[in-house]
């Protein structure tokens, strides 16, 4: 645990010593809030309903671009600057390195989530907001972001180029996000794709439903992605 926290603290310092954290947090909040309040066929002020689902609908798309931007540097930068060599020869396991780095991205995402609270809090003053749905939506959105970030981290651990990590991250997340649209009909493959897709499991949270299957889906996605990252780090041993 000490090792994980050591890595975590180092990553947080890097995020906040540079403009990275500020840029990703503010970009997400500005774009998402703008889309929610003021964009599209049904902007919040026009439809006049105390519902914040738009935040999470638009947020899921904006996050598709923001999450890989947070995680792209994690391993790729260490590879590019050769600092990884020093890191992996210290008394720390590859999994601990991955966990420490992942933890730091979760905290950045938690700060983003805290920033979105402005919408439900202000809306609750002017309308009747369903608190249960808000809470389950936030849980769903946190799990969604956590999954994106884990996939982004996995993308980062395969390359020494941050741009490649970013694009690979977006593409892999998009595949899982859009998977339910890839097969039509009711056949076995269509059902499989649907159950593997992020969107399918994500939607239940907005109805105020916390289904163990959905929780399990996101948690297993995160574990698989972290395992893949750690394996990619260890692959130096089998070359």
């Amino acid at each position, binding site marked *: 645990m*000490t*090792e994980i*926290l*050591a*890595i975590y*603290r*180092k990553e947080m*310092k*890097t995020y906040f*010593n*540079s403009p990275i954290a500020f840029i990703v947090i503010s970009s997400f909040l500005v774009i998402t809030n703008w889309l929610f309040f003021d964009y599209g066929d049904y902007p919040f002020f026009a439809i006049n309903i105390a519902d914040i689902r738009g935040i999470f609908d638009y947020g899921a798309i904006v996050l598709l671009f923001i999450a890989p931007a947070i995680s792209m540097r994690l391993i790729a930068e260490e590879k590019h*600057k*050769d*600092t*990884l*060599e*020093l*890191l*992996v*020869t*210290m*008394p*720390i*396991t590859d999994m601990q390195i991955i966990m420490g780095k992942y933890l730091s991205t979760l905290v950045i995402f938690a700060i983003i989530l805290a920033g979105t609270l402005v919408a439900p809090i202000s809306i609750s003053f002017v309308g009747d907001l369903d608190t249960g749905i808000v809470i389950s939506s936030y849980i769903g959105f946190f799990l969604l972001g956590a999954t994106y970030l884990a996939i982004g981290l996995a993308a980062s651990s395969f390359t020494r180029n941050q741009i490649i990590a970013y694009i690979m991250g977006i593409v892999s997340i998009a595949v899982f996000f859009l998977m339910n649209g890839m097969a039509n009909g009711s056949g076995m493959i269509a059902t499989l794709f649907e159950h593997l897709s992020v969107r399918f499991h994500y939607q239940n949270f907005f109805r105020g439903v916390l289904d163990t299957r959905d929780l399990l889906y996101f948690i297993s996605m995160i574990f698989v992605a972290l395992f893949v990252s750690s394996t990619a780090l260890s692959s*130096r*041993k089998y*070359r």
Partner: protein
Amino acid sequence: MIDVRGVTKTYGTVDAVKDVSFTVEQGEILGFLGPNGAGKTTTMKMITCYMPPTSGSITVDGLDVVADSMGVRQKIGYLPESTPLYEEMGVRDYLNFIADVRKIKGSTRTQAMERVIQVCGLRQVIHKDIHELSKGFRQRVGLAQAIIHDPEILVLDEPTTGLDPNQIIEIRNLIRELGESKTVIFSTHIMQEVQATSDRVLIIDQGKIAAYGTAEELKASIAGQTHLDMVLRHADKSEFIESLGTMSAIHLDDVILQKNGDLQASLNVESGVDMREQLFDLAISKKWKILESSPSAFTLEDVFRKLTN
């Protein structure tokens, strides 16, 4: 202390290191010499647990680098080639991070920080960011992270590459100082460095050990020859090479036509024979002018060139 036995490392189909065996005793400084791409870095990466050998075994203080990887890592301080550091961090932050990962806590940490700042001479830069530092100071920060846990063994991959002559001497002195209490393996392609700092020398070429012993032993291994450096004016290169070909006691090592037209030749002469008179007579007959003629003993550099050419 370090026991490398029959180690081979294969990348794809290429053997980067082939059946290499050597030992380093406690408190010894081993100079690791070889041309670029010879397998120095690969060998060091295996000792420091970056990657396991394809075959063979490496033990550090009795611990196997594969089976007891974590134990080995605690005993070793490693400075990789080109000194990778986190540019955006401050020097103190960086050393604190290394101490965190290595679980150095409380008063031990305070003492360790004080010791590395002292030993590596970091006092004046401790509040700076790493990207602001000169190459020499970066190298010292790299050494500081390698010794912060007071390891028994130091593995330094080309610690003086890219430094200016003064910095080289400083780092070299630092290595020698550290070598008084620690076992050190360091790699270089500078001969004087090995002669100046190490107890034993290991020359590696194309993944194989070309020579292994003290500097004196290695020099003695090519005894039986002496060296003669000459500079000639008005001499034609091909004619010179041809004429020397008739003298059986002389082996031409190198001939360079200098910019001003002078010929600079380096000859290996069988020992016990003084060829200078014959060469003088040859020069007279060909109307060459000998500007310089100086016999010298073999240096480690000659051993290196002879073994790795």
